[in-house]
């Protein structure tokens, strides 16, 4: 059973439908009991880091996700969901994440040259740095769709793909059974569906 954690941030419609399209049923749930039984966990999210991390904390769902991650359950964080896997973020003050991946979240503006528009919105190329379970059906140079103003840094060990926006921006991370995409696979056409398919096939 694949469970998508519903903790009240963002719209899960497209993400749920994209799993259905590749023949996978997903259970969208806010229940600790259901998430505890999941074979795979999806952590979605759009919006602000502080608000989302608070919601994960208050609901106790963050704790469940961390327990399951340590038990070896494959976890995929998407966009803000990926950022929440890290230790902390400097978005509107310092906030703690789940700490499942080493590193932190900073404003993109600190890293890209002047004149680059923020948010980083649009189709950008995936430059694969390392093997990843998510890249089973991918080719180096495939395009995916990004929408974000913050990015993961100080995470060299877990970065598996970057994209170029005047500076290398973390696009995909993997640390054991914990994985994340900064872009939106559910909005990245066939390439995105192939990344979700690969995640569903992770043993």
């Amino acid at each position, binding site marked *: 059973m694949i469970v998508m954690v519903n903790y009240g941030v963002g*719209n899960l*419609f497209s993400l749920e439908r994209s799993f259905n399209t590749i023949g996978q049923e997903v259970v969208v749930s806010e229940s600790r009991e259901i998430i505890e039984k999941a074979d795979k966990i999806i952590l979605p999210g759009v*919006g602000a880091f502080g608000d989302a991390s608070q919601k994960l904390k208050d609901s106790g769902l963050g704790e469940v996700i961390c327990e399951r991650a340590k038990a070896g359950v494959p976890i995929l964080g998407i966009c803000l969901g990926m950022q929440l896997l890290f230790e902390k973020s400097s978005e509107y003050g310092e906030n703690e994440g789940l700490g499942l991946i080493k590193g932190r979240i900073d404003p993109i503006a600190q890293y890209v040259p002047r004149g680059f*528009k923020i948010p980083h919105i649009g189709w950008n*190329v995936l430059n694969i740095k390392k093997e990843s379970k998510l890249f089973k059906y991918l080719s180096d140079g495939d395009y995916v*769709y990004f*929408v974000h103003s913050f990015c993961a840094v100080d995470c060299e060990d877990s970065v598996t793909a970057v994209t*170029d926006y005047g500076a290398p921006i973390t696009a995909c991370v993997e640390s054991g059974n914990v994985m994340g995409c900064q872009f939106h696979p559910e909005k*990245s056409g066939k390439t995105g569906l192939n990344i979700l398919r690969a995640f569903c096939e992770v043993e």
Partner: protein
Amino acid sequence: MITKRIIPCLDVRDGRVVKGVNFGKLSDVSSPVELAEYYSECGADELVFYDITASAEGRKLFTDVLKETASKVFIPFTVGGGINTVDDFDRVLKCGADKVSVNSGAIRNPSLVAEASKKYGAQCVVLSVDVKRVDGDFKVFAKGGRENTGIEAISWIKRCVDMGAGEVVVNSIDTDGVKKGFDIELLEKVCDAVTVPVIASGGAGSIDHFVELFSTIPQIDAGLAASIFHFGEVEIATLKRTLKEKGILMRI
């Protein structure tokens, strides 16, 4: 680096595509769902659905169509038409739209841009503006381009971006439908005035017009068109290949 985007726009009334389309491959040429799937296959980078329905019943049909499209097409999807309140944002976002475009609704109530941006984020709010030259000045027109609001266009766009619009679609009434190319003069002025992505609309009649647009204004992010795509005068796959050959970054 980020690619330039090619965006087909579909006008939908009572859940059906109007202005007709002309594709042999489609069994139902006025089905928004089929057309959206077709464009996605051809390499469209994004889709815009514009609801021109007047009735509540038609609006219901539109949201049904949105849901079905968003269940089958996995590229970014913008919805416009009849967006006057934050509740309207909510209604279309729940059906799977990624961005919402506001035009007359923002003119009537400019705080709508700020409210929606605060609630859903700037990336979700697209300002759409119809612009026409009046005595040498660029003015904002309302009601589908029929009414001169008297508002100066560049300052209006700046104001909306300051309030939280994350993207701007600039439709030139002067060049729209004429098929002699995009309104380069107007678009350059807008690009100089704002730092958010700018989408050019109105005037495309051929592949050359897109080449001219992206080569003349490097800051332009996307080109939007309707009938030339629907009638097959310009094929998206060919257009994107040609642009790439001319050195313009495209997702192929």
